[in-house]
């Protein structure tokens, strides 16, 4: 006789065994201790999701600062339409939800003993570790661009190293008729559309306050995120103000001199700046590199299903520090890495199969008043690789594809949606809603 197994009963049978095996282990060890390092978009989202989805898991968030200023919307501080206070958040919301928030620097990880050593000397034990360390800047990768040089030539690209207000003050003090020069790095780097939103928001400010000033953007690559949309908008909103030079047009900056406020390009041109915004090449945050999670590129290879490190088991590396192309290094997509990594970490600890992932990104950029543009993407795991779902995602439509009325409406809606996106995401990840 043949036993008929319906698909449903097969599923039910498969479910019974691993749970029965896992139960005694959980009882013997107590609650699963999930530790998250880094309270930015990835880490705060991980802590929030772990608290919501797994009430029986102990969630600890280790973050050096008591306040977190976002990179997104920093460009609106330059524009003069936001203050830094409105893009700065605390961790009380996450504490209220039951996340144990530890404000200290994670000094070192012992992956064998499964502990995080804090600067105060204490060791925090974990069963699974989620690391969202963000980026460090490669000082010296551009000759002369040291930490000291960044005071005169601000990067404004890592708020915990330098608040955006340093660059803001220099922009405000710039004379009318001056030149705002940007050095923009090659891929991969944090926030691919960010430099171009910055060009837009600086232009927005200059148009009003210093209409004779110019922006010169020196780029180490030949193309960029949302390029046709940005360039159409610049011609429309800021005609004659912005010059963008790609790598093949000698756009790559190889050296800077903060004393003379000059930048030197690959083919030897010396450019004098009134304000120099140098965004240098980047790498995974120090704790990830010190733990051996980064490869020769300076970034951290991870498994596409789980975000578990490909180099050190038991540690999941999410956000900008991870190698997750074709996903961009963005805060939004980091928040979806976070959820998958938490679900996978819990499943792996319990001897279960991690759920199959769907990663999602939405990035809005402000280009002018009531003028926003977007890029979206849906991504999945295909074996060891991340892949974008074919025929999905993409950027807002070009001007020529819409009538004038629809075009104005579309850009205005996306500017409004950008504000909603920023508010929804930040309130969610910091446990404020």
């Amino acid at each position, binding site marked *: 006789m043949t036993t008929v197994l319906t698909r449903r009963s097969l599923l039910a049978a498969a*479910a019974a065994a691993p749970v029965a095996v896992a139960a005694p282990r959980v009882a013997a060890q107590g609650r699963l201790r999930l530790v998250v390092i880094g309270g930015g978009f990835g880490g705060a989202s991980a802590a929030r999701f772990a608290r919501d989805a797994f009430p029986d898991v102990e969630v600890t968030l280790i973050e050096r600062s008591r306040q977190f200023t976002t990179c997104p919307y920093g460009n609106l501080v330059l524009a003069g339409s936001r203050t830094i206070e409105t893009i700065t958040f605390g961790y009380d919301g996450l504490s209220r939800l039951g996340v144990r928030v530890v404000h200290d620097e994670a000094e070192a990880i012992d992956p064998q003993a499964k502990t995080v050593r804090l600067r105060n000397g204490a060791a925090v034990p974990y069963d699974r570790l989620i690391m969202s360390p963000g980026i460090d800047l490669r000082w010296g990768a551009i000759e002369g661009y040291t930490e000291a040089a960044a005071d005169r030539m601000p990067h404004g690209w890592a708020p915990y190293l330098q608040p955006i207000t340093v660059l803001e003050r220099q922009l405000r003090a710039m004379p009318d008729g001056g030149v705002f020069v940007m050095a923009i790095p090659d891929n991969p780097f944090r926030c691919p559309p960010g430099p171009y939103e910055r060009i837009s928001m600086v232009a927005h400010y200059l148009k009003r306050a210093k209409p004779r000033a110019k922006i010169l953007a020196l780029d180490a690559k030949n193309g960029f995120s949302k390029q046709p949309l940005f360039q159409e908008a610049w011609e429309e909103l800021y005609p004659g103000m912005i010059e963008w030079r790609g790598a093949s047009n000698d756009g790559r900056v190889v050296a800077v001199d903060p004393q003379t406020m000059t930048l030197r390009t690959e083919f030897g041109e010396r450019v004098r700046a009134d304000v120099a915004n140098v965004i240098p090449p980047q790498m995974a945050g120090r704790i990830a590199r010190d733990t051996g999670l980064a490869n020769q590129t300076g970034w951290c290879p991870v498994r596409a299903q789980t975000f578990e490190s490909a180099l050190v088991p038991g540690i999941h590396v999410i956000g900008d520090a991870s190698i997750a192309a074709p996903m961009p290094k963005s805060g939004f997509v980091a928040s979806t890495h976070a959820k998958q990594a938490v*679900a996978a970490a819990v499943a792996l600890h319990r001897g279960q199969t991690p*759920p199959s992932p769907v990663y999602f990104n939405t990035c809005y950029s402000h280009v002018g008043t009531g003028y926003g543009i977007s890029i979206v993407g849906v991504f999945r795991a295909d074996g060891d690789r991340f892949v974008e779902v074919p025929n999905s995602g993409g950027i807002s439509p070009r001007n020529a594809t819409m009538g004038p009325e629809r075009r104005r409406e579309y850009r205005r809606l996306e500017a409004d*949606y950008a504000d909603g996106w920023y508010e929804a*995401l930040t309130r969610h990840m910091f446990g404020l809603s």
Partner: protein
Amino acid sequence: MRRRISRKVLGGAVALAGAVLAVPAAANEDLRIGLVTGGCVGCHGSAGSGGHGIPKIAGTLSRGDFVAKMKAFRDDQSNPTVMNRIARGYSDEEFALMALRWAKAE
């Protein structure tokens, strides 16, 4: 007439299509709802209430209508900004999971 979609019917479809075998069906379904809708909250908010012109999605449509709306976005049948681009990345099963979180209870 639109067919009524119960949680059980949706859940069955979800379990059949799902790749995860080693967790109890109900817990697994709740987790997958949390993961699949993780992107929704990034713009529509933790409670799906929207803001700044972003529509409220919580408790506004029946499950059937919610799924139909997502399919219409995917097929470019309405005139949205981002939702058509987004919906093309998701499966019918995932629309069902989204409906379980956001649509009116039935």
